[in-house]
């Protein structure tokens, strides 16, 4: 019991956000008369938010470096979808090649900003504000202000489900369920492995009951999720892409030297520098990475709209930044997790989706989202001042 309380106290923010997500989910489930959690709506909800979630992963890294934000992500999304149109439609290149080139475009945009931020030491706010204007202009020049239809493969990436290779299981999408089972099995194996390793080093790895309860709950959640999707259209490529990105970036932030350097920089830049961390390099790659992830989001978004449009990506940066702060990022840097950003993104997404179902006007939606963001950050400030007293 002591231990559970201890764990809870140490991770109160993280768990707090998870509880907030569940609470908001339940509230809207009731308010929408059960529509919110219908399989088809869950599938749509993820589909609608996948690009914001992808952006939130990169944005979280930017915020970790010291509360810095990237205002240009929406413009990079637009520029990348425009350059996809340029490569695949105007130049007639094969789609895989044009996707590859578009990713390079996003990466270069990120490196351009990283250069000014890291090496010329211009504040990120200003660099990315300028980037927002520049990339938006580039987008409009490429498209000449017109909307361009994209080839089918883009749409497949954004919205199609994986083939049901096991054959039709009637209403259920069987291969989705199989993937769910495989993933949960992999998860359990990995957890057992790391626990064995901890024990080998002679550390208290926590009680067995708690451990078993934890892996059972998570395995159940995974399978419930895939079962739910299987009742709709099944697992989409976009969801797989999102999950893969979450896993990779969680690994980078938690387990690698690079991730540790990002946290250290945000926690205390001076101490980090005097511990031998190359601050410039970290800043450069965090922003270059943001450009790269914005490019991935851009391709998914273009596929969802089935086209490249001059107004694509409008306001994405704001939703993304809000998602990170709602998800527990500290406005002064050094605190926050990838999972937190995803939870924050889902809170935003469920609010958007739920309020739309309820027919609340977009003006009120905007007000409510703004208030939630303020309260989330106020909670962060409050809990920090409490921590100082303790």
């Amino acid at each position, binding site marked *: 019991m002591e231990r559970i309380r201890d764990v809870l106290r*140490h991770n109160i923010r993280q768990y707090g956000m998870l509880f907030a997500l569940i609470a908001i989910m339940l509230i809207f489930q009731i308010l929408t008369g059960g529509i919110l959690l219908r399989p088809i709506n869950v599938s749509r909800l993820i589909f609608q938010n996948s690009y914001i979630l992808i952006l939130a992963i990169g944005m979280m890294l930017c915020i970790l470096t010291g509360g810095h934000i990237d205002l240009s992500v929406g413009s990079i999304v637009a520029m990348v979808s425009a350059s996809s149109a340029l490569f695949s439609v105007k130049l007639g290149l094969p789609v895989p090649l044009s996707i590859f080139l578009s990713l390079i475009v996003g990466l270069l945009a990120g490196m351009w900003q990283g250069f000014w931020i890291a090496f010329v030491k211009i504040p990120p706010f200003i660099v990315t504000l300028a980037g927002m204007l520049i990339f938006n202009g580039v987008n409009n020049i490429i498209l000449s202000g017109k909307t361009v239809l994209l080839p089918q493969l883009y749409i497949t990436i954004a919205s199609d489900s994986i083939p049901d290779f096991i054959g039709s299981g009637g209403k259920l999408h069987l291969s989705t369920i199989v993937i769910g089972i495989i993933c949960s099995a992999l998860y359990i194996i990995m957890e057992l492995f790391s626990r064995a*390793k*901890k024990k*080998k*080093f*002679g*550390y208290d790895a926590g009680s067995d009951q708690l451990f078993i309860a934890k892996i059972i709950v998570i395995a159940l959640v995974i399978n419930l999720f895939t079962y739910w999707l299987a009742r709709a259209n099944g697992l989409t490529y976009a969801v797989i892409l999102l999950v893969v990105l979450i896993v990779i970036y969680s690994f980078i932030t938690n*387990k*690698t*030297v*690079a991730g*540790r*350097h990002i*946290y*250290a920089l945000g*926690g*205390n830049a*001076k*101490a*980090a*520098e*005097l*511990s*031998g*961390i*190359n601050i410039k390099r970290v800043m450069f790659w965090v922003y270059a990475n943001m450009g790269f992830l914005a490019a991935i989001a851009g391709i998914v978004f273009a596929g969802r709209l089935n086209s490249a449009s001059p107004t694509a990506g409008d306001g994405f940066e704001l939703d993304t930044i809000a998602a990170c702060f709602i998800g527990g990022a500290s406005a002064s840097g*050094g*605190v926050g997790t990838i999972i937190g950003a995803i939870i924050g993104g889902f809170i935003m997404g469920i609010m958007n989706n739920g309020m739309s179902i309820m027919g609340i006007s977009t003006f009120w939606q905007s007000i409510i989202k703004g208030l939630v963001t303020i309260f989330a950050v106020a909670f962060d400030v409050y809990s920090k001042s409490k921590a*100082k007293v*303790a």
Partner: protein
Amino acid sequence: MSEIILDMKNITKVFPGVKALDNVNLKVKRGEIHALVGENGAGKSTLMNVLSGIYPFGTYSGDVFFEGKKCEFKSVRDSEKAGIAIIHQELALNPYMTIAENIFLCNERSKYGIINWDRTNQEAKKLISKVGLKEKHSTLVMDIGVGKQQLVEIAKALSKDVRLLILDEPTAALNDRDSDNLLNLLLELNQQGLTCIIISHKIHEVTRIADQITIIRDGMIVETLVNGVDEFSENRIIKGMVGRELVNRFPPREKVNIGEIGFEVKDWVVYDPLDDDRMRIKNVSFNVRKGEVVGIAGLMGAGRTELVMSLFGRAYGKKISGTILKDGKKLLLKTVSEAISEGMAYATEDRKTAGLILIDDIRRNITLPRLDKVSKNSVINESLEVKAAEEQRKKLNIKSSGVYQKTGNLSGGNQQKVVLSKWIFSEPDVLFLDEPTRGIDVGAKYEIYTIINQLASQGKCIVVISSELPEILGICDRIYIMNEGSIVGEMSKEAASPEKIMKCILTSTSNRS
């Protein structure tokens, strides 16, 4: 001349864990220049902060009487209203505003909130000529030198109808000519009836202008010397400043076998990163033997921190030149991480702002400089990491609930131990320890001295910077004395004494002026 303008009675000020002022009594006569001298941390600035309301009434005990009236200042504004102005060591001017704007900042010549620029400029011109400043009122403060900025500060104080002016180290950042001008100005203003309290380390300046000198040590007044009555010599003052009894505060330093020279610096020159023309480190050469603890003594601002930081992978400074030799091999270090991988370590003087990541736990702080030791292909092995951190925690006796405790919640002494273990974990051959015991209690100090001894006995080269002379004398085998960016003396432990070191510093300053 005999009227008492300021009378501070039984002032006691306690910070958590430290008694900064202990029953201090200070009397200042109207129309005199009263000097306050003492070592770093003796309590001079604290006393002046009590007087000027920076530490508001109620946070200290004792009474302050100014011009016969009892004062209960709650802020600097209150003390200024009463006629007391303080000029801090770090100037508080806005560099992007003009001289006139700065003089009347927060005291604008205005009506209904609208500034009367004619009056502002006219009065500014008068004040500018009064302090002997040869600049136009419309010049930006960023365009004039520190010496002139100091004059602007004085003009600003005069604009407030001040009757008691406090100057905290006014000449610390000035060159000799500017210092001279400033002192002459003070004497002139004094002739016109202004009372001054001046805090200074430069004894020769103090003896030149002061009517009375009060010596303060460890939060207590030692004595007040009166010009013309008492002996006003540097020797006398130095003895008062440092003369304390040394009790057994240091672990015995065994006669370990000190080896050959392990680390050597030759002709090290560093310029100020913000000012290309200002040489901060002037041709410094020194060496450290293996197993030896070498101290660098000096006053604040002597350039000791700048010296070691510039050595530590150029973490400070510009236009750096000179040679670093480690085990006779020449090192070319461009970054901190290169310095770390060459076996150097630097524990910063300020553990909170530059030493630790306070929001992170003990484990993450300890492994930060050498994550490669607990990772493979850039992936951190957390079990290995926890094990390594736990080892350090036990070895240095860091009192905490475990390696997952946040460093921000530790006491100062334990935080300092985390800083040390972080650098011990990096397995250095050369350790620079900058003020390793600042702000921690006597017991923790003793433990840290013991750790330093252990490190030395392992054959590491250790350089300790400390502003506390007894500490330097207690733990070091050899002492370099630094002043104004140069090494001005070297003494063996046996030959050194606080008086000699202080004298060495002060004479080197005097020689320049």
